[in-house]
């Protein structure tokens, strides 16, 4: 055995490379971890989800122009960018009070002169500043559904970028194919921004099917989701002049509504329209 050390080294290297090429695909299959194709995913691994909610909160901090309670402040954190996406909030986040309260001593009083002490929401297109945080949160935790719906809301309603919103929602849908929330938001985008009622109808009907596929406990918790989808479908059909369908969706919404008597008035009005033969001719 008078083999040269160089030859021996070359042999060992060849064996290593051969083994590596044959084992690498198998090792990938052994791992149950989802392969990440983003830099953040590779850097943080599964631990990235811990940062995602922090980045989502950062979007809210930016939305409030830095006036935001920390962990030591008297009022806890409340996410307002999310509230603003619901109709109930009227498209505006509720006002945040003085969470710091009166200063306790002269040090705190003087220190506040350097802190941001007024409440101001981003507006006039400056809402775009929250987008990087939402995108980072989505990259870090692709299963965090609120990130996509909130991002889409600001993109389509305030920044007039419906196509970017659609792309973001589609990304969310690829990562969460069973999410009725993303489908509902996609339907709103088609109906309100892209004026495509047929696609909106299809997407909302799919959203409803996804909602119904949830386990009964989840359905109980997400009654608002059902009501929102069916109400939007009812409005869409009413606009299209399909009053019978609109009535059907309103009745469905009534079964889950916390205030069914309000919907009853709308149902009665639709029934009157259906009963009036002259109104059937109107679109």
């Amino acid at each position, binding site marked *: 055995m008078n083999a040269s050390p160089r030859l021996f080294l070359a042999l060992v290297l060849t064996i290593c490379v051969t083994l590596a090429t044959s084992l690498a695909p198998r090792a990938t299959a052994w791992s149950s971890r989802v392969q990440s194709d983003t830099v953040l995913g590779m850097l943080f691994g599964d631990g990235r989800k811990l940062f995602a909610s922090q980045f989502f909160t950062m979007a809210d901090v*930016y939305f409030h*122009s*830095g006036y935001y309670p*920390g962990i*030591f402040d008297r009022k806890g954190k409340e996410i307002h960018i999310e509230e603003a996406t619901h109709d109930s909030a009227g498209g505006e986040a509720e006002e945040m009070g003085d969470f710091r309260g009166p200063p*306790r*001593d002269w*040090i*705190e009083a*003087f*220190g506040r*002169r*350097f*802190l*941001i002490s*007024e409440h101001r929401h981003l507006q006039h*297109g400056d809402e*775009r*500043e929250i*987008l*990087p*945080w939402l*995108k980072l949160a989505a990259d870090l935790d692709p299963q965090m559904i609120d990130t996509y719906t909130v991002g889409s809301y600001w*993109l389509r309603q305030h*920044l007039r*970028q419906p196509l*970017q919103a659609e792309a*973001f929602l589609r990304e969310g849908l690829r990562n969460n194919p069973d999410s009725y929330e993303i489908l509902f938001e996609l339907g709103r985008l088609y109906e309100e921004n892209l004026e495509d009622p047929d696609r909106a109808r299809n997407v909302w009907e799919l959203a409803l099917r996804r909602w119904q596929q949830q386990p009964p406990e989840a359905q109980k918790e997400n009654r608002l989701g059902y009501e929102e989808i069916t109400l939007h479908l009812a409005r869409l059909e009413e606009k299209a002049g399909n009053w019978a369908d609109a009535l059907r969706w309103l009745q469905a919404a009534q079964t889950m509504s916390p205030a069914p008597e309000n919907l009853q008035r709308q149902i009665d009005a639709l029934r009157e329209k259906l009963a009036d033969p002259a109104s059937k001719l109107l679109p």
Partner: protein
Amino acid sequence: MKTLFALARLTLTELYRRKDFYVLFILTAVVTLAAGSVNFFNDEKIIRYVKDLCLLLIWISTLLISVVTAARQIPAECEARTIFSLLAKPVTRGQVLLGKFLGCWLAVGLALLMFYAFFAIVTGSHEHRWPLGGYLQAIWLQWVMLGIVIAMSLLGSIHFAAPSSTSTICFVLVAGIVVVGPHLNTIALQQPQPLQTIAYTVYFLIPHLEWFDVRDRLVYGWASPAWQDIALASVYGAAYAGVFLLLAWLGFRRKSLNPG
């Protein structure tokens, strides 16, 4: 005064020769430019996260430069025995200490100017706005804060064995003061006695470095603090730096200058 500036010039030359500043400046520039080049939803007007990141890096970098530069001044002179030739001249130990402080402070001031010039160019080229008054206030306040930190590091370097331990302790202290310091009064009220009194005493004793941090105002585009508040904060900072320097001088007066 002439002696002080001669000693300060020596420290300035040292920072100019060392690579700390260059490395940190290049790192800050690369990270900021890389962050700024990321495209979010095809919107090129997004800038605040870049400002946020750049200012954070400037804070960390200048803090690093201040602490590390100040912490090694006296030990390095003792180690190389150059302190003896220095003190052989008509220079007192107090003047050496003050000269070292002044040199570090001026060096960090120069570094700050370079960092903020880069920050202003990056943000100004995006926003087409040049709030120079706000930038000057931020630079001044940060410089005063770094003055306190430098004095604190010099005090540490007199008492601790090695510059590395001084640097580590100073970093931990500064981080603690900035993060927990402003809320120590809130924490104190939730504690039983005598912990409450101890926490409140610490709250009143520590220098409140968070006053000098106006990064949020720059990032979110708020108006600058009033000039009289900045003047008061500067007096407060000067007082704390003075106290630390006095304590350092008291220690340095009796300190044996032989290494080890």
